[in-house]
């Protein structure tokens, strides 16, 4: 096909622009981002004030997913609340289950058998891998690297199959009970977890090779949204976001629970606190989680998966309920009146994938909490947006949101 080349004379563009300079004007614009926007990862709404391409003011509006979990908790027994904890950080329900169960067990003064603790640690670390896989996958999408999502979701899918086998549900696991877990691990499950862990390490390397030295990814994340150490602490950031800012705090090491002190692992710390550091910290945390999970599997103790001295708290085995009077009464009391707790106030935090998930429980005795407050890491992590976003370009906003890796189910409760 023949093509003709036509040359067009544009003249002196600069001179013409200068001639019209007096006519150019800018005005501040208010832009509503969300609550239904793919980059806000849920129902977060940002009211942005823009000057050209730059954000001058950012007001996060939350509460679109508020379900009144704390009010509901005051009206049901301790065990009945377990399914509601699934729906806090719904990307790591197993870790929420464990955090809630330990909080109530601290109130009751229960000591769990080693096997139960080890199962819970394994659950927490698998939940962390699954949450970070999703976090990094969608973060890649936010920065324009769509392929990463396919890799991470394939792996997450395999994890969900393992969760299904363990708990009976892929998403809303509700696996823990006060004083134990719902059931022991299925036969051969640990072997399948180990096989998964062996094959996930090369995939993490592959994701790393797609992102870590990727020029576009670096341009979009490096030096963007730097959170200083002081700011991170002042706004109560926790988890990977806090560690990326260079604060060395990990509750698994500093206030060990559920037997974390038995395992060797390193805690990655960022140097700058920008979006790139937050990505690097999550990548390394996945590797460390694999390391912990492998140690748990190789040292899995035998024994019971529930505390035997938890009478009036943990429902007895089904076979005993059906054949013995004492256990039948015990089960009836637990179901109708709830596990009986002493009076007191307890606050427990666990190092969840998103940060420190805390439960503050006020008990007046009996089977129902008088007040249950959920300290949600995403809530605190989002409160810094008001300070963090202004001064950045509009196109940086999805990257900043992706780097904070929050979940609105937990933020709004």
């Amino acid at each position, binding site marked *: 096909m023949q093509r003709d080349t036509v040359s067009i004379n544009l003249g002196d563009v600069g001179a013409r622009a200068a001639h019209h300079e007096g006519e150019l004007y800018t005005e501040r614009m208010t832009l509503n981002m969300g609550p239904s926007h793919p980059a806000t990862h849920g129902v977060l709404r940002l009211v942005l004030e823009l000057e050209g391409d730059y954000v001058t003011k950012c007001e996060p509006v939350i509460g679109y997913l508020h379900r009144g979990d704390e009010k509901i908790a005051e009206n049901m*027994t301790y065990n009945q609340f377990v399914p509601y904890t699934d729906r806090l950080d719904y990307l790591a329900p197993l870790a929420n289950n464990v955090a809630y169960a330990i909080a109530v067990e601290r*109130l009751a*003064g229960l000591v769990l058998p080693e096997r139960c603790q080890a199962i819970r640690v394994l659950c927490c670390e698998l939940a962390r891998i699954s949450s970070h896989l999703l976090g990094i996958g969608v973060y890649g999408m936010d920065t324009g690297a769509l392929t990463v999502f396919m890799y991470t979701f394939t792996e997450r899918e395999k994890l969900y199959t393992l969760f299904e086998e363990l708990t009976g549900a892929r998403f809303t696991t509700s696996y823990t009970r006060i004083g134990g877990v719902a059931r022991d691990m299925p036969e051969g499950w640990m072997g399948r977890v180990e096989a998964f862990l062996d094959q996930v390490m090369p995939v993490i390397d592959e994701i790393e090779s797609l992102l870590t030295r990727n020029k576009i990814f670096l341009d979009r994340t490096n030096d963007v949204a730097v959170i200083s150490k002081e700011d991170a*602490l002042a706004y*109560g950031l926790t988890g990977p976001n806090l560690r990326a800012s260079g604060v060395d705090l990990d509750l698994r090491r500093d206030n060990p629970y559920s037997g974390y002190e038995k395992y060797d692992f390193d805690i990655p710390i960022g140097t700058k606190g920008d979006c790139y550091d937050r990505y690097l910290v999550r990548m390394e945390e996945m590797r460390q989680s694999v390391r912990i999970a492998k140690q748990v599997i190789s040292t899995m103790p035998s024994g019971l998966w529930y505390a035997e001295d938890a009478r009036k708290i943990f429902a007895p085995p089904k076979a005993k309920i059906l054949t013995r009077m004492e256990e039948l009464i015990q089960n009836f009391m637990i179901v109708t009146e709830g596990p009986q707790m002493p*009076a007191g106030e307890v606050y427990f935090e666990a190092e969840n994938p998103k940060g420190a998930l805390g439960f503050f429980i006020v008990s007046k005795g009996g*089977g129902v909490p008088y007040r249950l*407050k959920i300290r949600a890491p995403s*809530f605190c992590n989002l409160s810094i947006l008001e*300070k963090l976003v202004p001064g950045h370009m509009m196109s940086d906003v999805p990257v900043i949101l992706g780097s904070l890796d929050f979940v609105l189910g937990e933020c709004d409760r």
Partner: protein
Amino acid sequence: MQIPMQTFEVPTYLEALGGKARLKADMPAVDIAPDRFLEAVKAILGEGGYALLLDITAIDWGVEADIRFTVVYHFYSLSTHTYLRLTVDCTANDAPTVPSIAHLYPGANWHERETFDMFGIIFTGHPNLKRILMWEGYPYHPLRKDFPLAGIEAPLPSAETAEATGECVIAAPMMGGPFHAAPGGTIANREPMGADQSWTECSPKPGPETPLN
């Protein structure tokens, strides 16, 4: 089974301000008088070295209680890796007030907004005290003990929509419900039900007449 709930010693800098130990706690827990509260928080941040404010919340002790609202703060120290709980009672039950600490811990901003939203506690000196989880203009404070689990009829967030449609937010139909049974009483009362739902089909819930369906 051991009972871990115990009483911890009050740190000296809080004892000097008249702080009293809270009973049955799992960590050092100090009750401080409202007029010494700001001094106490400054001491916790300065001398105590608790750099991380984890959480602010409140407890409603019931409509009949002499002191109805207690505000609870949780701090964490990065040097000693210990927790500290500080509680302060609100003196006035009808208009509970506590000084804001948002100028000391910027993270307190949202926590105080949430506590105001849920309990109606006014944090004096707060830069932007407005609702955070419920919408602006919502008339109730849902975590108060006199607010029913099912909710109360309330106008829609948007006044124009409410006017055009005549709709409103109605209470949840939760007769019976998957909740716990109150201890004691006859066997009929031991059917699991919502703790604050003594109403049935025969004796409807008090309040504005709303058809449930």
